[in-house]
């Protein structure tokens, strides 16, 4: 991929992804209900939910929509960068 293509395709997609995340989270469009697995296990089957587990690397920032947006944006960038690193290491160098 040419550098132009990176600027023309990758960066705009990442910016749009982060913008969509921000709109969805700040616009309160995200469901706070448990997901299907959690609902079936903890609400329907009344299995006790484990407590005291690892709450994530951003737990120290606290909670709230802005924290969610920042964490989501960082996650998008981390996923992109790790994807680039991992797959570049496995790619053949010549066409």
């Amino acid at each position, binding site marked *: 991929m040419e550098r132009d293509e990176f600027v023309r395709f990758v960066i705009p997609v990442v910016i749009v992804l982060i913008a969509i*995340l921000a709109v969805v989270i700040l616009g309160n469009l995200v469901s706070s209900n448990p997901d*299907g*697995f959690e609902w*079936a296990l903890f*609400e329907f089957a009344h299995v006790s939910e484990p407590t005291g587990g690892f709450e*994530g690397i951003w737990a120290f920032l606290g909670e709230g929509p802005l924290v969610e947006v920042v964490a989501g944006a960082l996650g998008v960038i981390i*996923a992109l960068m790790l994807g*680039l690193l991992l797959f570049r290491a496995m790619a053949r160098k010549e066409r």
Partner: protein
Amino acid sequence: MHVPDGVVPLYLQLILFVVSIAFIVTAVRRVNGRLDERTVPYIGVLAAVIFAAQFVNFPVPPSSGHLIGSTMVAVMLGPWAGMLVIALVLFIQALYGDGGMLTYGLNFFNMGAFSCLFGWLLALSLFKALKKRMDEKRAVLVATSLASYVTTVVAAFILGIELQTVPGFGVAGLLVITGIHAVIAVGEAVLTFVIMLYFVKARPQIISFLSGSEVAELAPAVDAPWARPAE
């Protein structure tokens, strides 16, 4: 569908951790050296898209759902490269506290290894049948969306089977988790359709099923004639 630590017994977590490592090693061997360097940034973008779509839940009262993306990424990059993308996203999700570290193997087995292989095979079968009736871009959109629906429901059923090791879950729990995912999977199919539509229009060369794909070499990794979608 991200299972946290402390729910399923340790022995099941360890067994599926070992199984998942075997799948990841196989996937690396299948992908290594078969990938054109020019396509790498597109794969990074796919990882970012799937992370974002797993990060936010859409409402499905009384619960909620999020994209898994395994079928979609397997159709685009082939099942083995798709598996590695999902492995990467699930690792970041685990760092974010969504899905446990010890249960990483179980989560990868359900949403990565199984879902990529099953979803890819199902989508490939549907694609071959649909391609006779419509153009290949429409066929890949419809086949991937339908396959993502079925794969999500079957993956939930498998999770329900694994949860039989949890006292109190039982057959009723199995039926409920499968049933609720039959509704959640509609969201998976719709999101898959929308995201695939974008890539079909903007970058069709990274969809392994389509003619002229730049990643077709990754897709027939099963090395069987029937597994070559572009033929």
